[in-house]
Every structure is written in C-alpha cells, then in structure tokens.
C-alpha cells in the first residue's frame, strides 16, 4: 500500500465510525476531498511549489489518527499559551475541549465554540454550510484535501453584522503528541471564522505542542470578512520541537473591508504554511504581515498568494525571517492582479537575516499582473547583519553584541509594530524577545 492509500484506508474507517451525525452536505464534501487527495498524493520536491520543502518526514512516518481522545491537560497547564483572558476555544488534537473553553454564546450574538456543534445547529449550520470548505482551495492541495476529508470538529467563530468586539477571541489548537496504536499521530485542526458586514473583530489562533514527541498537525483555516468589516487574524505557531505542521489559511474579503493577517512562526521541526488572501470586493485592504524566527535545523516555508480579483484594492505584505544555526526559511509570495483589477496597490517585501553561515533563506516573488493601471512593488533581501547599521549603533556607544541584538530584534519588532491589538502585540513581543535571548 502506498502512503496516500494508507490515509484513504484510515478515511474509510473514519467515515464508517466517527463521521456519524454529519449532515449529508458535509459527507459529500469529505468524499470529494478524499478522492482528490488520492488523486493528488503527497507533493514532491520535483513540484515547483514544493521545490524547497521536502515532506519526506511526513511521508516516511506512519501517522495514525487517534481513535479515542486523550485526557485533556488542566487549564493551569495551558495558561502560558493563552494571550488574554477573553473568550476562547481550546481544541486538543482537533477536538473541542469544552472544559477548557469559554461558553460558546457571547454577548451580541457572537459565537465562539465547537465547529461540530455549530454544524449541527440550525442558523450556524446554515452558515457553516455556506462557507465551510468553500474557500480553502482543497482541490489544489493534498494537505487541505486531507484535512477536509477528516473534517469533524474544529473552531467556529461568528461575529454578527455591526458587532464590534473589544477583546480578541482566542482559538488554541493543542497537539498532545500522544501515540496512537501505530505510533505517532496526526490531527487536522480546522477553523471557520465568519465576520459579518460592518463588524470589528480580532481572532488569535495559537497552534502549540504539549510535549516534544513527533506528531503531525495538518491545519486549515477559513476566514470570511463581510462588507465594510474590519478584522485582524493573528496566527501564532508554537508547535513542539519535533512537531510537523502543514497549514492552509484562506481569507476572503468583501468590499471596503480591512483585514490584517499576522503570522508569527516559532515552532515545529518542519512547517509549511500556505496563505491565500482573496480581495473579492472593491476597496478592500489587506495587510499580510509575518515573522519567522528559526534556529537549530528548523525549516519553515511560507507560501502566500494574494489574489486581487477586484479594482481599487490594496495589499501590503511584509515577511521578515531571522534564521540562526542551520535553519532554513522559505518565502514564496505570489501576487495575482486579475484582468479588470485596476488601481491595485500592492507592495511586497521579504527580508531575511542570516545569523550563521549555515542558515539559509530562499525568497521568491511571483507577480502575475493582468491589468495595466496598477502599482505593484516587491523587494527581498537575504544576508547577515548590515555592517553600516552595526557601525552606526556602535558609534553611539553600544557594544557590537548589544548592537547585533538590537538589530536582530528590530527585524521582529518591525513586524510586531503593525499589530493593532496591544495585548497580543505585547505577548508576541515577549515571545520574540525570549526566543532571541
């Protein structure tokens, strides 16, 4: 049996047992997704999109699905992974953990809870049916297809029209790293975030490992931002040192929306994050803002696609990487300006700081512009600490070591400064400082 077939076999037993209670529309999506996964199979480095990232650690290990949930950690054990005291959903190995989560219903009709129960209930079930697996392009990605095939639970956020939230909502996805019957396990975290017309909300997704076991987390997030809404999505990846993570984040913005997607990648031995942002209505603005801090032999690959489907939209993309020891960072930034998407304003930068001679960064912009009245700029850098900056700081009395520390921190701080939620920014600042020593 080849590797993909093993997952298909796992799917069959999942669909036979665990899928009970799912509505027909979802069963249909899953069937389509597993069929697509079987067609696609796992990618290889021969494929352009995977040129720099080998998924051999995933393919070569027999990951199984946990048959029964493991005992959950206590709230005190996960406290340090939470950013604020606001409403939260905690999931362990992709399953909702009610005792660690806040009540699903919040003031103003806001919902933050389990995706499985949202699917089962009338109005939220309709919303889920309208959006779930309708945005993330699982037909193009074996990993998103696999996640979708195993879709059973996840986090569900609904912010009704006109509601402005003061506190960020937190979604915490924990991987227990517990062994299944056949060794290490895989889980498929899933988020559906629906922010309706004119609403204002910030959502923090944290992905974290509970131990240092080998595990695989295969996540998909869909966020939909309705007309005139303002939203921020924070995505903090703190997987365990031997964890493997593949993730897809898909955002869709209607007209006159503002969305900030902030990505901080710190963990996992191997991480691949595909972010697709569709500017589907005129006047939409996107800030795609990311930071990866890697050391040891960590590998993190961010593939972003910004799809300017409508005119008068702006996208500003900034990704900074700090790579120490033997770490490898990959950034691929594709910007598509569709025919008719006139007056597009798009800016992309990717700067990589190499702290050792063995660290490596690959940076590739990909601009596909099919409209003529557009402003698109891109730039990328890969290199060690800038000697002129270092000298400037030293000429003010700072030691070479202190100056290097400040310049390295500056790479991260530049990204953190674009975050609008003070509490989240401060917590991430603390994590970044801790990471940089």
């Amino acid at each position: 049996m080849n590797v993909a077939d093993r997952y298909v076999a796992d799917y069959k037993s999942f669909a036979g047992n665990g899928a009970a209670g799912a509505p027909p529309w979802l069963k249909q999506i899953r069937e389509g997704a597993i069929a697509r996964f079987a067609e696609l199979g796992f990618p290889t480095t021969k494929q352009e999109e995977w040129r720099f990232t080998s998924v051999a650690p995933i393919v070569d290990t027999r990951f199984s699905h946990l048959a029964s949930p493991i005992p959950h950690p206590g709230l005190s054990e996960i406290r340090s992974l939470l950013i604020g005291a606001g409403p939260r959903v905690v999931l362990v190995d992709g399953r909702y953990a009610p005792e660690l989560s806040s009540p699903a219903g919040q003031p103003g009709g806001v919902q933050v809870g389990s995706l499985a129960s949202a699917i089962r209930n009338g109005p939220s079930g309709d919303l889920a049916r309208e959006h779930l697996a309708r945005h993330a392009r699982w037909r193009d990605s074996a990993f998103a297809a696999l996640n979708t095939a195993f879709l059973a639970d996840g986090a569900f956020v609904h912010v009704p029209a006109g509601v402005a939230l003061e506190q960020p909502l937190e979604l915490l996805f924990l991987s227990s790293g517990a062994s299944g019957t056949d060794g290490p396990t895989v889980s498929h975290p899933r988020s559906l975030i629906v922010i309706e017309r004119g609403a204002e909300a910030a959502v923090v997704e944290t992905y974290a490992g509970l131990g240092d076991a080998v595990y695989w987390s295969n996540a998909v997030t869909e966020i939909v931002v309705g007309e005139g809404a303002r939203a921020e999505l924070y995505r903090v990846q703190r997987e365990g040192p031997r964890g493997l993570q593949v993730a897809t984040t898909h955002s869709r913005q209607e007209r006159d929306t503002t969305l900030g997607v902030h990505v901080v990648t710190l963990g996992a031995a191997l991480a691949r994050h595909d972010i697709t942002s569709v500017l589907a209505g005129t006047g939409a603005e996107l800030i795609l803002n990311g930071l990866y801090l890697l050391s040891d032999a960590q590998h993190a690959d961010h593939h972003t696609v910004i799809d300017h489907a409508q005119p008068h939209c702006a996208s500003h993309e900034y990704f900074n990487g700090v790579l120490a020891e033997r770490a490898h960072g990959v950034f691929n930034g594709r910007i598509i300006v569709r025919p008719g998407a006139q007056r597009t304003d798009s800016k992309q930068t990717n700067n990589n700081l190499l702290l050792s001679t063995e660290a490596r960064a690959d940076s590739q912009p990909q601009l596909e512009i099919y409209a003529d009245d557009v402003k698109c700029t891109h730039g990328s850098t890969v290199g060690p600490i800038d000697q002129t900056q270092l000298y400037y700081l030293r000429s003010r009395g700072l030691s070479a070591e202190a100056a290097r520390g400040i310049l390295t921190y500056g790479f991260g701080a530049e990204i953190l400064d674009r975050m609008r939620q003070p509490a989240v920014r401060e917590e991430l600042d603390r994590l970044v400082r801790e990471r940089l020593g």
Partner: protein
Amino acid sequence: MTGKGKREAGKVLLEIKHLHATVEGTEILKGVDLTVRTGEVHAIMGPNGSGKSTLAQVLAGHPAYTVTGGQVLYEGKDLLAMAPEERAREGVFLAFQYPVAIRGITNAYFLRAAVNAIRKHKGVEELGPVEFMDALEEKLTAIGWDSSYLTRPVNDGFSGGEKKRNEILQLAVLNPKLAILDETDSGLDIDALKTVAQTVDKLRRPDNATVLVTHYYRILTHIEPDVVHVLASGRIVKSGGKDLALELEEKGYDWLRTEAAVA
C-alpha cells in the same frame, strides 16, 4: 551668533599627526595634521572629494577605512586603537552625513540604549524609561520636536532634514567631549539650519570641542569657529581664522588647489 571673546587656550583634546587612510585601496587622507583644544570650534572646509567625510569617519572608527599611517591622540590616548563604541563612551561623537535607518527600533529605545551604554561605562546608574523620557523632554523641545519622533523607528521614513535633526538630538542627549559634525548643514532649510546651529552652539563649553565639517559658509554665521581649515586632496592646505571661511565663500576652492599643488 555667540562671541566667545578672548580666553585662555584649553587643553589639547585631539591631536592628529600625519594621518593617512585608504578606502578600498585608494588613499584618501594623505597626511592630515590637526590639533583641537577644549573650548574650541574648528571648521573643516574643502571641495567635494577632498577627504572631509573620510577624516570624520576615521575618527569615529568606520570599519571600511584603513589607517595606513600617522597617529590620532584623544586626551592623550591612542584613539585609533579603540573600537567605535569605546570612542563613543570616551566622549567622541560623530553626527553622520548620511544617518542610518533602523527599522523596528524606536528612536526612544535607541537613544536610551546609547545613553545607558555610556552611563554604564562611566559607572553611573542607568536610566529607566520614565526617567529617560523626563530627561529628554528639554532636548526635544530645543530642536523643535514633539515626542512623536521618539516612537518612530530610527531614521526610517525620515526626511533628510529630520535625519539631521535626529543626529543633533543624539548629540544633545549624549553630550560628548568631542563632537564631529559631518556636513550636518547640508540639505537643511534656513529654519532647520538655525535650530540645529543654535542647539550645537548651546552645547559649547570650556571643556568640550566641536569639529564642523562643512561645504558651506552659512552654518558658520550661526556657530562662530575659532579656526578654519581647508582640506584639499587629503591634506590640510590652509588654516586661519573665521575670515578664511568668508574668503572661501567668495573665491571658491580652486585657488587653493593650485596652492596645494605648488606646495
């Protein structure tokens, strides 16, 4: 304009002897001699490419320049043997001609880190963020800035004039013994020049000294120099009083090139 009148000669602060320096293998400084005493303001003028900025950068310790001969004594110590940060801690300050932008680091953070590095060196207690802000207020006002400049990243997105003002803010905050201003006046409008010049002038004390590297006469109408030097082709070819600056303003530099060639 501040007339300092007649006074006793100060102590020798900086002594440059037959200084030679190269950048990327090309000799730029070809035997510079200069003595600066406390309480003095020296103006170093000269045509483009004469080595003015090289001299300033060599004194601050820029790693791209190689000293190939000569000596520089600062308070009697070998300045060239010191790392750039040691020079700064001992009281040498260079206002850069092209200040460097540092993204992600606020001006406030940078200034406090610099002040505290120097305080630590002197064995003085380091300042916390609040104390530091209090101490900064007056200096900020002097250069005509509000505190919004402190939360912006260092020189990032600053106009040319703002960058120069930022150098002067650092000068005021760090309060060095030897201030070297490398074409700080270039690119400033009249008002900005006046503000910058007044700030520099107010920092003059009997125990410090200023070296103004400039291309233009006009800053010297605000900061009166004690000595004016002309640097041409890597050497000081002429020194004199402030009248020399006026003469240069009228006659340009070409007559000195000829003079230097003859010499």
